[in-house]
Structures are given as C-alpha cells and as structure tokens.
C-alpha cells in the first residue's frame, strides 16, 4: 500500500468536504470518540499554560511544524498560530484522537523536510530559514498532503475549544472576532439593527 497516495486520496476527499458549504460544510473526520474524555480531562489541567514538551513530535519536528503553521496563520497585530499554541494541539491530537492519522502524517512530514533540504542545502531546517525563504518554499508545496493536513490541523488548533490544548486563552477566537458566549439577543449585527421589518408582496400568485 502506498501511504503517500492514500494520504493524497484522503486529502482530496477532505478538501472537497471542506469546500462544500451547501449542506454540512465539513468533513466528519476520523473519530476517536472514547479518546475525547481523556483528551478533555488532560486539557483541563493544561489549558492555561503551554505544555513543556511534545508527546508525538521530536523537538526538530515540532519546530518545523510550528514554523509552517505560523506561515499558514501568521502572527501580527492579532494572534497567529504560534500565539494560539496550535502546534501543541497538533501534537496532542496526533497522539490521541487523531492517532490513526499519525503514521501518515509522520511520513509526509519527513517528505516535506527532505524536499526542503534538497531545495535549501545550506539551511539547517525549515524552522531555521528566514520568513521570506519559508514563504517561497511553501508556495512550491502548498498542495501537498503534508501542507493540507498541517493546514487543517493548524485551523483546528486555533479555533477548537481551548480545552484541547490550542486556541490558547481563546486567542484564536479573539483574532477572528468570535464571542464565546452561551446566549445572544438581537440585534446581532449592524444590518439587522437597522432593519425596518418584512414588507409583504402584493397578493398575486406567481406560477
């Protein structure tokens, strides 16, 4: 079985699902339903502080993945993937509820690192490269399984509940302008606040 082809297949299916806002605009990704409770329990203990070490990644792998995620959602005047601790979410998800994807992810990560070394022989690692160099290289690989998976995991790491280890102190939600609140009351936004009410149509029947 060709792992890379399978991963490619998975990614293309996933990309489709994520792009189809018509129905349920999402994949229903691989489940580790019993893993949830454990993950959430663990999360309760760590959500206010960065984990001290990786569970799944080596330090070098973690640094590269963090650098890629930080180019996917860059830092700036608002939080990016780095400030949201997306890499720690990724690390934990691959060692718990997304564990079934972990072997495939490690394969495509190694492939990514190999490609980078081949393209930039003088640079120690992707993480050690300058930002412009990172962006230029990512443009050559941004349709690969590694990039697609990292993009998905980075987004989940930024916007899933902080109890899963990313979205540090709600920084992803704040960046996006999402209020984590249990209930709301109208008006919800600018345009409905100024709405004057529904005006009925003349009573003629259309064919």
């Amino acid at each position: 079985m060709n792992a890379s082809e399978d991963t490619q297949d998975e990614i293309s299916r996933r990309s489709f699902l994520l792009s189809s806002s018509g129905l349920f605009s999402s994949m229903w990704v691989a489940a580790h339903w019993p893993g949830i409770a454990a993950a959430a329990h663990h999360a309760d203990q760590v959500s206010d502080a960065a984990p001290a070490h990786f569970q799944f990644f080596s330090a070098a792998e973690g640094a590269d993945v963090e650098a890629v995620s930080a180019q996917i959602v860059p830092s700036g005047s608002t939080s990016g993937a780095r400030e949201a601790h997306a890499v720690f979410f990724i690390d934990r998800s691959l060692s718990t509820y997304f564990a079934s994807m972990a072997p495939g992810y490690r394969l495509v990560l190694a492939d990514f690192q190999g490609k980078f070394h081949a393209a930039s022989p003088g640079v120690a690692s992707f993480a050690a490269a300058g930002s412009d160099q990172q962006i230029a290289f990512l443009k050559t690989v941004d349709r690969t399984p590694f990039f697609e998976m990292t993009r998905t995991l980075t987004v989940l790491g930024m916007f899933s509940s902080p109890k899963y280890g990313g979205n540090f102190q709600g920084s992803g939600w704040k960046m996006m302008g999402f209020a984590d609140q249990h209930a709301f009351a109208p008006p919800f936004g600018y345009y409905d606040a100024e709405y004057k009410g529904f005006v009925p149509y003349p009573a003629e029947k259309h064919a």
Partner: protein
Amino acid sequence: MTARKFKPDEMVDFVVVGSGAAGGVVARELSQGGFSVLVFEQGPRLSAADFEHDELKYFFLNGITNSPKYAPQTFRKLPTETAKQPLGGFLPASYARLVGGSSTHYTANFWRFHEIDFNERSVIGGIPGTAFADWPISYQELEPYYTKVDWEVGVSGLGNASPFDPPRSKPYPMPPLPVKSSGVLLERGARKLGLHPFPAPMAIASQPYRGRSQCIHCGFCMGYGCEARAKSSTLYTMIPEAEATGLCEIRANSFVYHVDTDAQGRTTGVHYFDSNKGSHFQPARAVVLSANGAETTRLLLNSTSNRFPQGLANSSGMVGKHLMFNQGSGVQGLFEHNLNEYKSVQVTRILHDFYDSDPKRGFYGGGGIDARINPQPALWALDSGGDLPRWGAEFKARLEAFPRAMASTGHTTSLPLESNSISIDPTLKDAWGIPAIRVTYKDHPDDLAMAKFLQDRSYEILEAAGAQKIWRNEISENVFGVHLLGTARMGNDPATSVVDKYHRTHDVRNLFLCDGSSFVTSGRGQPTMTIQALAFRAADYIGQFAKRNEI
C-alpha cells in the same frame, strides 16, 4: 403516566426501528392511538444538559454521529467500481446516532415541498436515463399533515410570505425568528433584483412553545443538539409525548439487525443487540422501519430468508436504488460592517424564485437560496474550495473579517438514478459482525448544472446587496450525504416501487417503511419537514388499518 417498560419477549402491537424525525412521530401517533409501541434506537439517550458548544467533538470526532470506528461504510462512484472505505474516516451516509436521530442535530430548515414536487414527471415529462417519476400522493393529500408538523412539532415562520408558497390551511403557530444581518442583506440584494425573499420557516421555537424554551440564539444548531430545547427535535417533542401515553418505550443502545418473517411471509418481530452485544428477539404484531434511507435499506437487505433471498420487501429489486443526496452550492461575501453571523439560527431568509425547473435553462433542476454562514470558527476557516485564500496574510485577513462575512447557499435537486444506491458491501462488516453499508453515488450532470446556476444567482444577490468581496465555493460531485432519500420509493406499481402510498411494503403486509427512503423525488433540499409530514400521514393510515384488523 410514565414511560412503559416492556418485559423481555412481551408481544407489542408495533416495533418502530429508529427514533428520529419519522420514528418519533410514528411512535407518538400510534401510542396516542392506543397501541403498544416499542421503539428501538441504536444510539444513546442524551438530554439537553449533555450537549456542548464543542466544534471539534461534534464535527471532527463524531460526537453524536455514526462513526467508522464501529460502523464503517464503503464508497464508489459507479456500480462497475470496487467500493473502498474512505480514508480520513468520514462516512458517505452520515446521520446522528442517538435518541431523536438526525432531528437532534439538523439545522431545522423546514420548507414544505411544493405541489410540483409530487407531479413533476407528469408536468415536464420523463428524463431519459433516470427513474424520474410522480409520487402516488399529491401535495393536497399531504397538506393536513404538513400543518400537523407545524403545530405538533413546532415551526416558526410567516405563512404565505412567499408568492411561490404552496397553499396552506393554517398559519404557522409561531412568528419567524428574529432576522439576522445575513437575512437583511439577502433580502436587500434579492429585492433589488426583483426576487422574493421571505422569512425562513424553521423548526426552532421563536417563543415559548408547548413547555419548551424559545431560542436563546447561541448559534449552535447545525450539527449540534440544542441546549435550550428550542429546536423541535423529536427528542424534545414527539418522544416525551409518546412516553407520556404509558404505552411507549424507547429502548436506547439497542441495534436492530434483522427483521424476522414466518412461513406465511409475515414479519414476526426483530432481532437486536443490546448494549453488551447480547442478541434478543422482540416479537411484534407489526414493524415500522424509520431508521433513515441508509439503515432502513441495510436492514431490509440483510434480512434475507428462504422466502426472501434478495432481502425483505425486495421482490422488485428496488430496495436501496435511487439514492438522492441533494446538491448544493455557495458563495461567501464580505460587507462593510459587522454581521456577527455566528450568533443565532443558521438561516433567517430564503427565496424560492428558482424552485421550479425551467426548460430555458437547458437542464432539469430547481432549488432554493438562503442566507447563512457556517457559524463556528473552524468550519469557516477550513472552507477552502473555489477561490478562497488558504494560507498566509490573505488567509488571515479573511479570518479577521469573519464578523463581516456571510454565505449564500443554493439547495438543489438530485435526479433519481438506479445506479445511485445503498447496498451491502460484499466483505466489510461492522463491530457487531453485520454486513456494512456500501454507497454508490455519482451526480447526474443536470444536478451539478443546477447547483452552478444557483451559485451564479447567489453571486448576483450578494453583489446587489453591496458586498465588498465575493468568493465562490467549489461545486463538486457528492461523495457523502446527510439527506438519505429515495432508497425504498413509494409507488402504486409493486414492480417499480417498494412501499405503497400508505408506506406498507408491497411484499409484507405487516411491514411498513417510513423515512427519507419513501421519497420518489428529492425535493429541493431540506427534506425533514416532508419526512415528518409523511410520518404523520403514515401513522394515521397504519392506525386505521390496525383498528380495522387490516394488518
């Protein structure tokens, strides 16, 4: 009265398989009619307090949906291919697996079908290569039951607001939910173009209703269980009312895997697994399958016997055929001011100007357009098809603009094709050792053309509404569905259909099927309202047959 608890092996009048949109209604109607009813639900029973605002759990970890971990499925596009398990773990036939079924996690769009949905074949003619057909019932026959859904289940809306609305005998019991900015903008753009947007009918309480709370506008409808009990899921409406008769038991965590028949070809009851995978037989005078268009089919095809070698109720060979998912398309727009679309229900304005098929378009199809958003941040961010930016500064700018964004979505027809089906995978089995679902699906070209047509209309509407920027989502062939329709179609001819117009199987006198599988055509998306109207009607007739000893 408290819920009934039947003794092991106790004979019941009706076994109902599935506690969702249809099963909940059937159970309530039959138990209120004085019959003893035992409802089997494979999933757990949860309550409002169990539901959470947790996007990862509900959308990425199968929090309340069927899971490939224990119930894998396979997929292929064409019958000539070998079906494979989709990698990444999503399921091609997806549904909520708990008491209340998919009515627990639906978005609650509750359009009625129009008159044309029932007799379209006669009006516009046949379509070569398809099984396009009329329904054996008309809108007029179903109308009283649509009204029952409005009032008994609880729908908010504004009657006759759309000039394209089918006739209705009674207004909605509750006013529409408060309009959102996306609804205002859709209305603004559409009216400029001479179209007729109107308040969306939603199965969500806009005011306190029959002991339930009104909507608290938390924004977690699509894919979630309602924490306020405002969504009119059968979990909160039909099921407690069925239990209150003292004649109905909901048996959760109980998976029916075989419908049994005797030498006369009548069903005698069902075999099921309890939560410990212990197998039991439950006798019944009659059986109603409301397990959804995928699982009802699997159950029939797996219930083979000497008398029914190709599966139960399948003398026509039509069980599982004509699967329809509906198609869809979308655009996303950015506006000057904040809309904050993550708040409140998903949809507040829709339009039906393009509902009917029009030969001038050059293809068959019709649909409705709505204003909405994928309200939660991760889903919004992951939406990457079409020309949406995917990473870097431009991607982040799109994320930061989230409060100023909305989507407009088209919901469209799927033609019934014999090659699109639910069947039994020849090798794969689930965690109980029961042969698994195989989905075969490829959209008809007209289905994709219609989705594209509505995307263009949505684009024009957002443009007319003053969007600063508009992105198109990708339109692709369906590789999964949450609308599981048409797989045991209703009809007068036993050679080409599975159930008659009263949902009785042509082959087994005391076996009835009532869920999305009964559909003859797909409607234009949003099938649950019609599933429930059919369920009220079916239960009405089934009860009459039982009282007259005609079962």
